[in-house]
Each structure stands twice: as C-alpha cells, then as structure tokens.
C-alpha cells in the first residue's frame, strides 16, 4: 500500500532523526553534567539508604545513600567519552594506516591486513580485558582499550575504499606525472571514505557504550568515585531483591543510547546509499 510505504519512509527517517536528537542531548548532558546534578553523585548519606522516589531524590537513593538521578546524569560522561574515543582514535590512527596500506599495496598491504585480521579475530571484550588487566583497571584505561579495539575495523574500511578508488583512478592518474597523482588520489579518497566511516562511527558509539558498561560491570572500568552506568548496574545488582530499580534506570539509559546510535547509523546508511531499498530492512 502506498500509504504504508510513505509511512515507513517517514518512520525510518524519523527513527534516525530521533536517534540523532537523543545523541545530541546526551552529549549536552554529559558536557554540562556537573551543573545538572541536583546532588553530588559521590556524596554518601547512610541515613537515607535505598529510598524510593521523592521530591528530594527524584529516582531514589542507592545502597550508600547516593542520589541515583545525579549518578545517572554523571554516568553519561563515561558513555559519551567512551563513544568519542571509540571514534577518534580509530579515525586518527586506523584510517590513515588503512589508506597507506591500501595505497601502497603489495607486500606491505598483505602484512598489514594479516595483522589487522589477527587483531579482529580476538573478541572485543577479551581484548578490553587483556588491556585493562595490563594497564590496570580504570575508566580511562577501559576507554583506551575500546579505542584500540575499533582501530583495525576502521583501518580495514579505509583500506577497502582506497583499493577501490585506486583501481578506478589508476588509469586516469597514470597519465599525470608522479607528484600530482598522489594528491589527486588523496582528494578522491577522503570524500569517498567519509560516508561508510561516518555510518560505522555511529554504530561504534553504540558498541563502545556496551563494552564500557560490560567492563565497568566486571569491576575493571570505573571505580568509585568515578560513575558509569555499568558500574551502577554492578553495584545495584547486589541490592536487586531490595530495590530492582537501581539496575533498571542505568540499564534503560544504556539501552536507549545504543538504540539511538543504531537508529542513526541505519538511517545514515540508507540515506547515504542511493541504491539501498527503503522498503524492507
């Protein structure tokens, strides 16, 4: 039915748009977190332990009397920072390496791809565990680990695009003398690489939030007084029979953030690829 098709198109774009708005809002919250928290997220108050909703503590208090709402807001920082690092490190390290490897080709490319594949073969969490184990458990180290995890992926993406472009422009470029060749190819590579990388970056945000939460949940990431949604869940789990809401709020926060990243990524992928059919996903 044509009406449904139209509805679906709007829906597909609307979800992506909603995802984008959510991420923007989240970034703003993360930036202005210290001013947005009604209470100090680390402040303990053992007389007000595990309270429910109230006007003073909107979402109640946790097992150490800390304000859940404030902690939730503060936790957005860890999430956004993880996402940012998961995009920036691969972008500035992985992409150039991938382009160089694809451009040079030959044995350099072969070796590079073997290394990349070798790293990708390791499940992300194990890689994060290994790195945090070596460097010590902290939120910062967890985020560096995440950045390292995503670098080979971006490198592969960049290399793939570079190879394609090299094939297409090789004939044209061979007519122009040496120096110009490289510049022109570079000019063509960047704009062509951008769309798939932007799409991948959006999914990386989601995945980074999940990994950071998992690592923090295991006690290898955020430590008090650092706040992360993952660590909130870890701490809240021991109180689950007393107040299950302690894990529900941070869990929902993670879920919504990941959904936002996924929706936005999907929407980007559709709009950036003219061949992609909008009908069925």
């Amino acid at each position: 039915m044509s009406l449904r098709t139209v509805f679906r198109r709007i829906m597909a774009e609307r979800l992506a748009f909603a995802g984008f708005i959510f991420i923007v809002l989240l970034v703003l919250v993360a930036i202005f977190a210290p001013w947005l928290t009604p209470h100090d997220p680390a402040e303990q108050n053992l007389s007000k332990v595990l309270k429910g909703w109230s006007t003073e503590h909107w979402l109640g208090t946790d097992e150490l009397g800390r304000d859940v709402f404030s902690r939730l807001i503060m936790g957005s920082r860890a999430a956004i920072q993880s996402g940012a690092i998961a995009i920036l490190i691969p972008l500035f390290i992985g992409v150039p390496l991938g382009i160089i490897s694809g451009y040079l080709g030959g044995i350099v490319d072969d070796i590079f791809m073997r290394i990349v594949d070798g790293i990708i073969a390791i499940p992300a969490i194990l890689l994060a565990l290994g790195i945090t184990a070596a460097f010590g458990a902290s939120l910062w180290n967890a985020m560096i680990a995440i950045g390292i995890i995503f670098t080979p992926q971006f490198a592969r993406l960049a290399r793939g695009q570079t190879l394609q472009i090299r094939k297409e422009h090789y004939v044209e470029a061979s007519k122009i003398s040496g120096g110009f060749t490289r510049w022109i190819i570079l000019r063509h590579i960047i704009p062509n690489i951008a769309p798939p990388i932007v799409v991948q970056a959006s999914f990386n945000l989601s995945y980074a939030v999940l990994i950071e939460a998992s690592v923090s949940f295991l006690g290898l990431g955020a430590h008090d007084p650092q706040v992360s949604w993952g660590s909130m869940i870890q701490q809240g789990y021991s109180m689950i029979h007393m107040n299950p809401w302690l894990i529900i709020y941070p869990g929902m926060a993670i879920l919504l953030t990941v959904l936002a990243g996924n929706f936005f990524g999907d929407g980007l992928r559709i709009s950036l690829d003219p061949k992609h059919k909008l009908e069925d996903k």
Partner: protein
Amino acid sequence: MFLRFLLRRLLYVIPMMLITSFVVFSFILLIPGDPALTILGENATEERLRFVREQLGLDKPIPVQYFHWLTNALQGDLGRSIFTGELVHETVFSRLTVTFQLVVSAMIFATIGGMFFAIASVYFQNSWIDYFARFLGVIGSAIPNFWLAMLLVLLFSLNLHWLPATGFTSITKDPVQFLRGIILPSIALGAVGMAQITRHLRSSLLETMNSEYVRTAYSKGVDKWRAVMRHGLRNAMLPVVTTIGILFGNLLGSTVVIETIFGIAGMGQLAVNSILQRDFTMLQGVILVMVVLVIVINFITDVVYAILDPRIEYD
C-alpha cells in the same frame, strides 16, 4: 581438489593465528614497569618475584620469550598459575566443557529463535508477528546482555521462582537440572545473536523471495510455504551461515559477563578471576584457548559455507 582448497584456507589462517597469539602474548609486555612487581605488589618476597619472572620469561629478549611461550603452548604447556601454581592448561580445559555447553545452548537458542522469527516475519509479511520480530531484532541488538540477564533473574528467579538464579549442572550429570540451569543464561547470552540472525535472515529471505527463481517456482504451482522453505530459505541461509560463525566468537567473549552473573564455573569466569587476582599466566592461557577456538570455528564456518554453496569451485 577439495583438499587443495582446504590447504589454501589453512595457509591463510596460520599466519593469522601467529599474529593473534603474539597479540595475546604481548599483553604481558604492556604492563608498565616491572611486571612481576606490578602483579605481586610491593610486599612480594624476592622468591615469589623470581618465580613470576621465571614463569613470564622476563629476563630474555622478547622474540625469544615469544618463541618459548609459543612452542610450549603448542605442546600444551601454558605454564603455571601465578596465584595457585596449578598447571594452566589443566584448569582451562576443565572449564572448557562447561563453557562449551553454555555457548552451544546459547547458539541453538539464537539460531532456532532467529530462524523462527525471520521465517514467520516473511511468511506473514506486515502482520503483527512481522512487526514483533522486527521489534525484537532492534531491541535485541541494543540491550546489554548482563542487564538482560539480571532482568531475567529478577522475573524468573526472584519473582516467579521458576528457575535458579545461579549454578550449573553438567548435562552428563543431570539433564533436567542442566536444562533448568541453562535456560536463563542461554537466553541472556544468545539474545543478541538471535536478534542479529533474525534481521539478517529476514532481509536475506525477503531478497530471495523477490528473485526470479522463486517466480519460476510459483509458475510451477508451488505454494507459498514450499516457496519459502524449499526455495527461498535454502538460498537465504547461505550468508547467514557466516553470521552464525562470527556469532560464536562474540558469544565466547560474552561468557565473561554471563558466567560471572550466573555463577557458572567456565572459562569466562576464569578469565575474570584471573584478572582480579592478577594471575597473568592463567589469563594468557584462557584468552589464548578462547581465541584459538574462535579462529578454528571461523575456519570451519568458511569451509561449511563453501560446501553448502554449489557455485563455489574448489580450485
């Protein structure tokens, strides 16, 4: 012909395994300062420090260290636990069967669930089950697995008291208890996989149902069920086989979280404990075994795919 094909694939996998093993090995190298000191802390005795340094082979140059480590590993010797002194490979392999049962259960759940929803979604296009399946696919891909585990425990253990919240019984000891204990962890572990398979198979199936050979099938008088199951599915499953193979690696990694929550004494829990106890040799051993498993499964997946697709030539 087929043998040559296998050989060529192996030739690609082996250098990759070497690199991966080097990465796993290099975790130790990343430790700033004196690793032995970092591991044991400041109050360590000289004797303990020497033991650790010997275990890690820290006094030799790096390539030599790696070489020794690798050759030992290939013979099955993964060193001794810094913490308990036990043989690493014994501990790891004793836990392997446990994790194996968990991961296989989760994969069965993910695959069967995924296939069910994808097929139902396509057969009853635009019905409520179609929307529900797509909803599951979206949520399943986004939900943190440990959080899902907790919600499941909250509902099925703490509220309804139907299923246990922790513990594991091997299937060989008591199948019924095994089943009761494995349901929640399998769902929590496999949910992401089910979502991925649902989405992938659904889109693949929709594509094949629009193909010309399905049209030919209809022109022969084939009914919708047969068209979906015998014509569409057989073709649509091919790319999904690869997804399933990759899923195995994800699931294996995620056992660290799930086994911790459900108190399952498998490799994942071992990995987490090793980190908390700073037992590096054990950690290296566990991760190495896991990674080798992942690579082997990926290799098998590639081969299976080649077998299933008659269009792939073997030279």
